[in-house]
């Protein structure tokens, strides 16, 4: 958490994270370049750069895309999510080098503006195998540019988390465009089974993990809650919630986290105001509900971030009866003080 904006709020974890992936990128590039120089010595430097950075970008995108569902399936992977934006910006830079060199190589020094040429030099838009695949890569690069250039808490706050999240969910559109760009472009010419195979395995991995994570959450959302006559919902037994932890329930189509701490229970809206992290997968640390994604904190009894921070989430009323927890499905306005239910 931070009150003012700095380019990067460095800490020990971020430095270690960046070192590991920077070394991995260098390892990839060195290995690819050495193999190319040995096995394809007649190739040009431009082709080498286009191939090295294009293939690096797409492999990095697969790694980035599996982080989200892995964290939803197992919170032990959350430290990888913490600094994912550095990985994303690095992937964009690799894609930018690929795209820039491809435009310089194939579209400059001609009788048409290079960007116009990307769209007009092949007009077979009605054909699948002859489709102008460069257009798909160019559009994906634009999306990645908007994502990378807004990958900072300044834009998150000023665009509003909802718009920011929507913009960054465009990564899936970029992934679809890039996959088509590769299959309708390079793979029309580079038809070896192993290279096509690694892309297919990557696609299966990304889609499989997303579907598994979605299935897990849907199962949780569909748990039937018995409604009592007076409007309270019976959700679980007190002993089902661990100390300083929460259980998540869906009431009135909203996910709510019920926390147990110091002999009390409090319920707040499950969505963190920072990036929409699942507060119910967080923990009470120093008396505050702490988001598992980036450590944003809220007081459980009123949903307010401790001063000087100003974030607020909705709160809910709870009741405990014969070891069972009951919740009033109607949310209080964000930041409303609610007396915790005593166990």
């Amino acid at each position, binding site marked *: *958490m931070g009150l003012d904006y700095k380019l990067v709020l460095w*800490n*020990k*974890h*971020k430095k270690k994270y960046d070192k590991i992936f920077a070394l*991995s*990128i260098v*390892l*990839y590039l060195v*290995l*690819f370049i*050495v*193999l*190319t120089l040995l*096995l*394809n010595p*007649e*190739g*040009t430097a*431009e*082709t080498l750069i286009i*191939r090295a950075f294009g*293939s690096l970008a797409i*492999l990095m995108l*697969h*790694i980035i895309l599996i982080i989200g569902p892995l964290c939803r399936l*197992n919170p*032990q*992977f*959350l*430290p*990888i999510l*913490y600094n994912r934006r550095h990985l994303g910006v690095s992937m964009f830079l690799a894609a930018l080098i690929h795209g820039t060199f491809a435009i310089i*190589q*194939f*579209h400059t*020094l*001609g*009788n*048409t503006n290079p960007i116009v*040429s*990307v769209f007009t*030099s*092949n007009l077979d838009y009605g054909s699948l195998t*002859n489709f*102008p695949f*460069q257009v798909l890569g160019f559009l994906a690069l634009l999306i990645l540019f908007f994502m990378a250039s807004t990958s900072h808490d300044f834009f998150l706050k000023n665009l509003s988390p909802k718009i920011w999240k929507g913009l960054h969910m465009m990564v899936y559109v970029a992934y679809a465009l890039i996959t088509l760009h590769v299959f309708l472009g*390079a793979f029309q*010419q*580079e*038809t070896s089974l*192993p*290279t096509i*195979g*690694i892309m297919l395995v990557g696609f299966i991995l990304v889609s499989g993990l997303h579907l598994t994570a979605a299935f897990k959450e849907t199962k949780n959302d569909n748990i039937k809650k018995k409604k009592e006559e007076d409007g309270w919902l019976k959700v679980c037994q007190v002993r089902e919630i*661990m100390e300083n932890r929460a259980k998540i329930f869906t009431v009135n189509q909203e996910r709510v986290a019920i926390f147990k701490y110091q002999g009390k229970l409090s319920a707040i809206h499950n969505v963190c105001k920072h990036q929409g992290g699942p507060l119910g997968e967080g923990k009470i*640390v120093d008396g505050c509900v*702490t988001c*598992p994604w980036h*450590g944003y904190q809220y007081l459980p009894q009123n949903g307010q971030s401790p001063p000087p921070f100003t974030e607020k989430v909705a709160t809910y009323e709870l009741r405990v009866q014969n070891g069972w927890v009951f919740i009033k499905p109607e949310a209080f306005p964000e930041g409303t003080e609610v007396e915790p239910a005593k166990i």
Partner: protein
Amino acid sequence: MKQKDEFYIGYVEDSVGNLTKKSLKNFVLFGIGFLILGALLFGIFQNTASNSSFDFDSATKVSGVYHEMPYPMLQVELTEGIYKNVVLLGFGKFGPNPYLKDIRNQEGDLEGKHLTIEGNLIYYNGKTLLQIDDGQKISLTNSKRTKSISTESLGAISVEGEIVDPKCYFGVMKPGYGKIHRSCAALCISGGIPPVLVSDDPNAISDYFLLTDLKGNPIHKDILPYIGQPSILNGLAEKLGDWHILRIDVSQIRKLNKESSIY
């Protein structure tokens, strides 16, 4: 229970529990393994380039008889009675005509005159081309016209292959053919570089054909939709020294729905 108690907060030092550390280690190993596997597969199974050459960093002076049949060329005498036709090209994705403008204005029609041009050589598989990057590097060495150069008619033929731009195909880009290169080839040919059919039939009378229309005039824009795709072309073949020319009706080109195999 112990597993659940581990809780990571990015800005708190040493908040990574043992089980989390193990998961992170597994992820890092997977990520590095995925990148190494990718580098091996993409590196080993990529298409290799031909041994074509482009002397982009060194200039060569080439002297010969200028002719347009219909594309600008220099007929260079290698040894007595042995000639090579060097195809002239411009800088970037342009043909040679913008660079020949000044000397045409000074000397008039260049057909049959002896020129010396300093440019960058492009060569592969017996064919030579010359990139001109400055009109000032063209000089008239002999204004006396050599008798006109003629072609030999070889009759109607059918050739299967791919239409490329010869500048990239014969050395500037590797690969200079196929779908990835198609946009570049279209720009080159629309910029005045002659279209060349590369045959993938080992029994064809030549590996390469300069393409013209049925009257023997240059074709550029009309042929753009057919570039970079395996096709069958029917036309009248002619021999022009070490090059072959194929006179075609562009509308009769038939695209083949198959992978290119011209290398």
